């Protein structure tokens, strides 16, 4: 009759006989997806991020019922939601707290990848899709932050869009095209609303689905970096694997309890988080004629903002120096598969040197700042190829690798903190040092990651029953 054979009974059986894809998907991705049993604390944050995505979508839809994307009405409409819509304050705080928690979850999630080599073969695509999600998330929060139309919203958008001016030849035209006007205005607000509510959420959803599918196709990594599919039983199930459902659904539910507790503690008791999540300046309606004394982006952008500000005219000297060092190192030591890669990297280094330091061809520090800021975000995507370590997990790498990563984390936090504060000569110097370490960490990784005495990687995962 055309019906499929089904093992299920009742209503489920009726559906399964006609649309087996549903239960097949459930089995493939949940009840028969064998995940390593030794997941630890770092492995919660993927599902936390997914939960926050749902929260943002729901609260966003509810906010969009009342918000008005018009330069004259936007600011008031947000306060209208806070005061006059029943439960409006709760929905608004859900969304603003959610934005920050999304980045907390995503940064922790990315850091797990760095700790355990989750981006290494065969998971490069998972990592790349994840990086695209990260970039889309940054775009989403950038567009969303203009919507309340406060002072910080307005001037933050003005400054960042003006960065496009520095692109040679097309810069000025491009920033006008993006804005829809000569300065950030109503036209900009309306299109950012469309991007924030429709365009980027659709892109994000698609990328998240792709990210999870890409992961499930190759299987999850684990804190020991051991490939569990290498040791399977008679039925082909990994010896160290357990079905995601019910073990990890239950495990993640437990973890979510803690996550929600932190989230609600912030939402109900400190939604502004002392000006870090909701800035004081943004409670002043946007005024195109008055720049606040102190413009800073939201905390999750501040590390990259720091890199931008650290790029002064003197800093170009360092860039030129770095280009020379890297150029020599690449040419001498790099074990790339093809000569093409080596020569391309060398060419890039020569160009960098020329555009940094050679008079007449030297580009000003504004363009370099934009380039370095962009690079500081993009460099994460290159990790699968920068990391040449023979072992995946930090547990079996030389002990001093932990120190290297530790200093990177410290540099990242310092850059983040500096990005929130006004500049002074000392702070700029510190930011430059941290930027240097930041880029050295990544660009020299092909060498340091394979240096040192590595510990033997076990056959099976290490697991303590609990």
């Amino acid at each position: 009759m055309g019906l499929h054979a089904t093992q299920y009974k009742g209503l489920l059986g009726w559906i399964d006989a006609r649309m087996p894809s549903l239960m097949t998907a459930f089995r493939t991705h949940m009840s028969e997806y064998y995940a390593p049993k030794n997941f630890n604390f770092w492995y919660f944050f993927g599902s936390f991020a997914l939960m926050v995505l749902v929260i943002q979508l729901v609260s966003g839809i509810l906010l969009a019922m009342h918000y008005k994307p018009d330069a004259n009405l936007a600011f008031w409409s947000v306060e209208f939601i806070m005061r006059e819509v029943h439960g409006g304050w709760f929905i608004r705080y859900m969304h603003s707290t959610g934005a920050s928690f999304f980045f907390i979850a995503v940064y922790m999630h990315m850091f797990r990848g760095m700790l355990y080599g989750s981006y290494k073969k065969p998971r490069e695509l998972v990592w790349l899709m994840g990086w695209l999600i990260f970039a889309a998330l940054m775009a989403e929060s950038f567009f969303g932050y203009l919507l309340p139309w406060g002072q910080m919203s307005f001037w933050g958008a003005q400054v960042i869009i003006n960065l496009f001016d520095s692109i040679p030849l097309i810069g000025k035209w491009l920033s006008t095209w993006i804005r829809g006007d000569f300065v950030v205005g109503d036209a900009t607000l309306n299109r950012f609303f469309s991007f924030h509510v429709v365009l980027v959420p659709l892109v994000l959803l698609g990328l998240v689905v792709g990210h999870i599918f890409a992961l499930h196709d190759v299987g999850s990594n684990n804190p020991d970096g051991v490939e569990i599919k290498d040791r399977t039983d008679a039925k082909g199930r990994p010896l160290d694997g357990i079905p995601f459902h019910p073990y990890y659904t239950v495990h993640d539910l437990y973890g979510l309890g803690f996550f929600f507790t932190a989230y609600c503690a912030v939402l109900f008791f400190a939604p502004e988080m002392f000006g870090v999540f909701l800035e004081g300046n943004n409670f002043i309606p946007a005024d195109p004629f008055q720049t606040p004394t102190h413009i800073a982006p939201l905390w999750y952008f501040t590390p990259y903002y720091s890199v931008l500000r650290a790029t002064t005219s003197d800093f170009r000297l360092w860039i030129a120096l770095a280009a020379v060092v890297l150029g020599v190192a690449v040419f001498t030591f790099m074990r790339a598969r093809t000569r093409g890669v080596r020569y391309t990297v060398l060419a890039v280094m020569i160009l960098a040197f020329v555009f940094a330091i050679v008079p007449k061809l030297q580009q000003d520090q504004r363009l370099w700042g934009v380039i370095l800021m962009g690079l500081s975000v993009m460099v994460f995507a290159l990790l699968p190829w920068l990391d040449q370590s023979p072992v995946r997990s930090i547990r079996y790498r030389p002990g001093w690798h932990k120190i290297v990563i530790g200093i990177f984390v410290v540099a990242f936090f310092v850059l983040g903190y500096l990005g929130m504060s006004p500049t002074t000569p000392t702070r700029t110097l510190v930011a430059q040092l941290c930027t240097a370490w930041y880029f050295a960490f990544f660009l020299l990784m092909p060498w340091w990651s394979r240096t040192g005495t590595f510990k033997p990687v076990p056959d099976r995962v290490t697991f303590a029953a609990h």
Partner: protein
Amino acid sequence: MTASLQTAGGPDVPDAPLTPERRNAIITACVVGGAGCIGVAVPMVASFAPSEREKAAGGPVEVDVSSIAAGEMRIVEWQGKPVWVLHRSPAMIASLKNHDALLGDPDSKRNSNYPSPDYALKDPSTRSIKPEFFVAIGICTHLGCSPSGPFAPNENAQLGDQPGFFCPCHGSTFDMAGRVFKDKPAADNLQVPSYRFKSDSMIVIGEDQKKSA
């Protein structure tokens, strides 16, 4: 459904089915989690309801009735709807008796679809607090058009020798107290909103008459 809840098993995992303890834990988690979900859903659902701004816009409206001449009707807006304030002349008031047989619901017994307040229905023939002033929501109880009128006797073909109101959309007719005539598409009398006399010359639409009156 039980097939999906059971573990698919694995080398390190015996094919343990749903033990009673596991079932209890699942049910407890569902109940507690469900309570949490309801708690979160409450403000979300509430956000759909009219906000303070809508409620303020839908606030009471004051009408000075001393400026309405006998026989004249003023239409004011309240909660986005047209409200008729008709100063009934003695002839109009007299016309309210003696035609109960022609009416679909002469005593306003059907009050549930378009509820009018009790104090307005104390006298079923006038359907108002004071007989000289008739206040009603000018929306036909059939499908929502606004009837025309008031028409004097023999001024409108459908009404004939009865004074009243006529709805042009599907032909329903109402008398000078908003009561619907028999055999018309509309089945209910026109709705009387809450209103009260703040003074002899001022009515407030949208606020209830206090008990003392």
